[in-house]
């Protein structure tokens, strides 16, 4: 490979890293804490902001998908206490539950939660029990509380109800206050309830639209769903198609038969998503929901519908934002320590390898930078174990160069010229570095197959770090040597 091509390759790598890391940089250093917090507002609160601001917030939300996230230990997150409603279970069983049965139910719920959160791509959550029968879920980053609710609660909140056309037709504007809430709820007849139809505004935020009165009998709920998938209709709009179980299908056929001519409200998380009119009896149990949602929403809905149903209905007893479990002070101290450590390494390399140390230091800096770029591009969640992986990467980044430099020294001692010594030094060292890194890579690759948890974060960082390390410490430094030896017409290598 000629030199120009090699330089180009390095520049491309740097370009990719700059591109990958820029969002993270903007997110953490250009936006203030207050600005960042804006992206966590609920739809209702967001509506109070002027249009320009809302557009900006939408952009920020997109940016957030391309940054290095910090884990629970580094930035805290949403903390939810879930309480199972045993009454329902008891009602179904027709007797008091034994402690064993309760424990079993809790274990099942936790398993389902873990699966579901994993499927939503939230990395490194914490799911623990508290007391006898409560479950604490912590999700890193105070991302949309709305979405957190969907992730955690999700299913069981899909309901089918029939629209009470008469009462809905009688609703008038002056029955509602400025915020759209009903003033006198007694106008709703018993057996009916008021719900709202929701749809997306241009900022992709669900907004409450008009009020609709429904008969409050739940005709069918999420537990009858067998399969759910996402599709697009002929206009390219996202829709969710689901298949009901045999029994659910029969029920659905019956519901549609009795209610021909009426509208059927499909309610997700207490929000009416769509209200198609029933034209005829629908047999077969295939239902599609077309609503005003994006592809991503449709995927979320399908996911929620697919993931197993909880054996017990859950309630959120408590939901709050918690700080990092390491504490801000520890994180600051940790960052300081990492910087001090890196500076010491840089100085040591300069002291020991003199001018050649500069080359190793450049490679080290590039290594860290490329690693951050790739992690950002993966929207990676960084936790303390992940940082441990980075520290080891720094250690190993230097190691490869130490191996090479020591080899070059040996070659020089045996009387070779500078460029011959550099060449054979690299050749001999390459095999050493390859074997050492491959063995470590095997270990980390196996570890990274771990479903979740701290081990995975560590292993992923280290695996990526090793690959980048091979590039910077061998390819880049060799190029730098070639450039340096040519430029300064080096007769005696400072190493």
């Amino acid at each position: 490979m000629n030199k120009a091509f090699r330089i180009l390759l390095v520049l491309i790598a740097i370009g990719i890293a700059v591109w990958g890391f820029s969002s993270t940089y903007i997110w953490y250093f250009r936006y203030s804490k207050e600005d960042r917090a804006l992206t966590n507002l609920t739809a209702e609160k967001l509506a109070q902001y002027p249009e320009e601001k809302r557009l900006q917030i939408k952009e920020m939300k997109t940016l957030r998908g391309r940054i290095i996230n910090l884990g629970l230990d580094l930035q805290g997150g949403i903390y939810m206490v879930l309480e199972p409603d045993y009454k329902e279970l008891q009602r179904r069983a027709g007797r008091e539950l034994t402690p064993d049965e309760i424990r079993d139910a809790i274990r099942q719920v936790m398993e389902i939660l873990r699966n579901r959160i994993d499927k939503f791509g939230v990395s490194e959550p914490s799911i623990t029990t508290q007391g006898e029968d409560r479950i604490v879920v912590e999700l890193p980053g105070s991302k949309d509380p709305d979405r957190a609710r969907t992730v955690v609660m999700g299913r069981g909140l899909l309901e089918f109800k029939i629209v009470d056309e008469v009462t809905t037709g009688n609703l008038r504007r002056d029955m509602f206050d400025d915020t759209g809430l009903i003033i006198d709820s007694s106008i709703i007849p018993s057996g009916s309830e008021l719900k709202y139809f929701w749809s997306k505004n241009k900022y992709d935020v669900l907004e409450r639209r008009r009020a609709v009165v429904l008969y409050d009998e739940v005709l069918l709920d999420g537990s009858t769903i067998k399969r759910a998938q996402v599709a697009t209709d002929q206009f390219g709009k996202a829709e969710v198609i689901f298949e009901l179980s045999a029994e659910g299908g029969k029920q659905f056929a019956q519901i549609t038969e009795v209610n021909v001519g009426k509208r059927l409200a499909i309610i997700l998380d207490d929000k009416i998503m769509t209200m198609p009119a029933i034209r005829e009896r629908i047999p077969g149990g295939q239902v599609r929901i077309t609503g005003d949602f994006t592809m991503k929403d449709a995927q979320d809905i399908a996911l929620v519908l697919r993931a197993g149903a909880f054996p017990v209905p859950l309630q959120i007893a408590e939901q709050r934002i918690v700080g990092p479990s390491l504490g801000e002070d520890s994180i600051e101290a940790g960052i300081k320590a990492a910087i001090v450590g890196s500076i010491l390494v840089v100085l040591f390399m300069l002291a020991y390898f003199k001018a050649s140390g500069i080359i190793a230091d450049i490679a080290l800096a590039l290594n860290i930078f490329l690693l951050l770029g790739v992690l950002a591009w993966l929207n990676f969640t960084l936790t303390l174990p992940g940082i441990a992986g980075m520290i080891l990467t720094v250690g190993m980044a230097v190691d490869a160069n130490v191996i090479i430099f020591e080899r070059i020294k040996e070659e020089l001692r045996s009387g070779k010229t500078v460029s011959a010594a550099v060449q054979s030094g690299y050749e001999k060292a390459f095999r050493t570095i390859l074997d050492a890194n491959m063995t470590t890579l095997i270990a980390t690759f196996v570890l990274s197959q771990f479903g979740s948890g701290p081990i995975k974060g560590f292993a992923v960082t280290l695996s990526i770090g090793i690959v980048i390390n091979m590039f910077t410490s061998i390819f880049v430094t060799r190029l730098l040597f070639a450039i340096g030896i040519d430029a300064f017409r080096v007769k005696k290598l400072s190493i």
Partner: protein
Amino acid sequence: MFKKVLKIVQHRKITYIVSAAIIVVGIANIALRGGLKMGIDFAGGNMMQVWMKDEVTIGEVRDVLIDTGYGNNVQKIADPEKDLYILKTAALERDNDRVIQEITDGLEEEFGNDRVVIEKVDIVGPRISSYLLRTSYIVGLVAILLILLYTTFRFKFRFGVAAICALIHDVLIVLSFISFVGKEMDTFILAALLTIIGYSLNDTIVVFDRVRENLRSAKAFEDYENTVNLSINQSLSRTLITSITTLLVVISLYVFGGNIMRNFAFALIVGILAGTYSSMFVASAIVVDWHRLKPEKIKKV
């Protein structure tokens, strides 16, 4: 630098004894204490929610917890009205009431009797489920087998076995030291152990690579033990420089990283020292002894 050839593998009898002694005492110590102390992530424990009426920092609250000897797990709740903290302690003993009482006393002593309100006390379950722990053994085993496969392919079977012995040696040494100083096993220590595994393997393979290279000549092969020793010497400056640079990072983590990083950094320091030591005095020594007992045949190159 190291022109004079130092005798290293020749001292293996002593170093075997030293390693074995540390590990035996360490394991005995762990056994006497009824196993490794498991932190809250593995064993569960207690949580208390505390309302601090005066403005305090999370560091001050954590210092009190550390002084009581019940760990350092403190988290702040973002609440606009009150300064709320969650303190968690591992289930070290069953007498939860006493633990809570001691922490409450500690807090009240530090911040004043009427300035501390215990809002809630509860039992928390482990974060790392026993299922995950069980699968981790399988994953570890798979990793070991694959490494063995690779090293057998690139070196020889015995080299792979020796490298894995060194790795297990390092992990056991670190666990022993953790038990000596009475630290808890938590996710930090777990991360440290994984880091050490990576470091140990890397270090051993670099030495073995030199051994492999030197063993190519028939003359050197005849003098197996000295050739291995020479290889260690030839890679010695690299071994030392790399441990120094890695230690520089880890020691600064220990000194400047705050009290919460200290356990993590401590485990890493012990592990890096053990990893450096074991590639010479354990892994290489095993290769030499293996050859003495069952000589390998010279590879035709």
